[in-house]
């Protein structure tokens, strides 16, 4: 019971099936005040169904959902006043301006910032008299964010807030979300970008096929798979891999799409040893990349698939 009283969002045993597809299959979640919690997973993992059940837009088949200590069954209207929601792929009316859009949404909530203040929160002041149809993808997404903030919500739901945006617009949106976090807002966001989850979320739950397959802080999850670094290189096709796999600290050497990918515990020992071995074999090195293990590697380690493969 202690988690129930502390958590802003409390979900137990959530199940939802559409005809013959089980979209969500027994999910438990707890989101605590002031944190940004990420639901990470490939498309079709059940993230949107889960968040829409929490938003009261979809009915669950089974399970408990408590939001802000309230239930959708009995307190729907109160909840709608206290939640900020940004849906995937909402197209706001293109003929009205940014300011008019926020006046419209502000009109639905009993209190919250003035429309102009909400516009300032997402840094769209310059565009406030522009029609929605004239905004770029990133600006539209920021407007959607402002519409979510206009009721001064206690909990913010963001469903894939940066999908389809260019890198610069994504970074801008991340900065905004970071600011909301500093203001002490609680956020549940879904994403299929592991870098987004790592950047923004204190805790994440990785979803696949309607289930949570791992949960924790990004750091914990990355540590849990026992990989610190990943080394990728390209060489001639006849390079022999067995001696490379035998280098100390190297694990899981595999060939993918013409390049060799391996997991490494100590980068500073493994890389010189790899270069020596390639030199011994007389194999040319055309490409060498290293990166620290990411949530993507966690997903690969757990499922054998890449996030983007779906």
């Amino acid at each position, binding site marked *: 019971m202690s988690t129930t009283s502390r958590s802003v969002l409390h979900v137990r045993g959530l199940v939802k099936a559409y005809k013959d597809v089980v979209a969500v299959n027994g999910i438990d979640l707890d989101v605590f005040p002031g944190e940004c919690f990420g639901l990470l997973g490939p498309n079709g993992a059940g993230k949107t169904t889960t968040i829409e059940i929490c*938003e*009261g*837009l979809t009915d669950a088949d089974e399970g408990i959902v408590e939001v802000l200590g309230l239930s959708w069954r009995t307190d729907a*209207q109160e909840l*709608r*006043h206290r*939640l900020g*929601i940004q*849906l995937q*792929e*909402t*197209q*706001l*009316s293109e*003929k*009205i301006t940014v300011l*008019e859009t926020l*006046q*419209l*949404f*502000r*009109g*639905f*909530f*009993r209190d919250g910032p003035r429309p102009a203040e909400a516009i300032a929160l997402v840094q769209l002041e310059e565009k406030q008299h522009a*029609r929605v149809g004239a905004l770029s993808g990133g600006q539209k997404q920021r407007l959607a964010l402002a*519409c979510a903030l206009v*009721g001064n919500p206690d909990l913010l739901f963001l469903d894939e807030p940066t999908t389809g945006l260019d890198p610069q617009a994504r970074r801008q949106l991340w900065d905004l979300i970071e600011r909301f976090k500093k203001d002490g807002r609680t956020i549940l966001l879904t994403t299929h970008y592991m870098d987004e989850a790592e950047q923004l979320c204190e805790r994440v739950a990785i979803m696949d096929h309607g289930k949570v397959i791992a949960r924790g802080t990004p750091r914990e999850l990355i540590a849990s798979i026992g990989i610190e670094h990943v080394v990728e290189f390209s060489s001639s096709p006849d390079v022999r891999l067995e001696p490379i796999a035998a280098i100390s600290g190297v694990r899981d050497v595999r060939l993918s799409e013409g390049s060799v990918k391996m997991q490494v515990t100590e980068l500073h020992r493994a890389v010189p040893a790899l270069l020596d071995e390639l030199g011994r074999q007389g194999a040319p090195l055309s490409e060498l990349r290293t990166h620290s293990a990411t949530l993507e590697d966690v997903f690969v380690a757990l499922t054998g698939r890449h996030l983007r493969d779906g």
Partner: protein
Amino acid sequence: MADQRWKRQALLQLTFLRFREFTREPEAIFWGFAFPILLTISLGVAFRNQPAPVLRVAAVTPAVSAALGREPLLDVQELPGPQALEALRAGTVVLMAEPGAAGSVVLHFDDTNPEGRTARMLADRAVQLAAGRVDPVAVSNELTREPGSRYIDFLVPGIIGMGIMGNSIWGLAFSIVDARRRKLMKRLVATPMPRHYYLMSFLLWRLILLVVEVAIPLVFGVLVFGVPLRGSLVQLTAICLFGSLALSALGLLIASRARTIEGVSGLTNLVMLPMWILSGVFFSSQRFPDLIQPLIKALPLTALIDALRANMLRGTSLVQLGPQLAVLVVCFGLCFTLALRLFRWR
């Protein structure tokens, strides 16, 4: 009280949204307002009351030509015999007159053609008068061209009714399905917006628009064609209000489930086409067989147009239009209740 204020704001803002979406769409304004006027003009011109037509006839000799020329309603051409016959066959004249034996006159015409028969009577009278006949009884003409019995008088109420139906159904059904398709409706439903306000904002907007969409063809018809307004204007307003609510509710019902523009287009045509044909927009619905008259009378557009015509052309009071108003009220109640129950909010 603060609670009441935000609720008023919600309805106000939703109605503003309707207003802005409409006025910023030039095409909607054209089809909503300019189109009925163009239609009224073109039909009014096509069916305008012309001065009594002058009939073209041919005469073969100058004497006959002079005799026929005394009749102002005949336009006489003097032509040689074969050419006059040719003109009659070609239809450029409806009658040909030539001298016959012993001072008589022979009239050639087609007796199955009403104009030919009229021309024959006029020509006969002209020839007799020229020959010195004196009529025993003096007859004088008094012309009546009564407004209210012309085609344009019949047409204007029909156009007003059709406009109310078209704008209610297209305007509502398309906006709603578009909002659903764009997931805008789902987003609105995720806010505390009271759902019935969403539907009410459409009805409210329709009522505001009604003033303009009725006033334009009405004022135009009255000023340009002298269409009569014999009934009470207040009652005329009430009829339009009832009609608009009934047809808007029908529009809501049409849009209550459809997810795509294609889907709603099909439904809209299915509902509107029979009413365009049966409800007597362009010609009297009395022309259809008696068997389907009860069905025609039950259509909301028939009720609206019948009531409009009764008010404008005959000055009938609202009290006597009970059956028509009943159809509209029942249509509104039924469609709105069903629409609320069936409405797909996402």
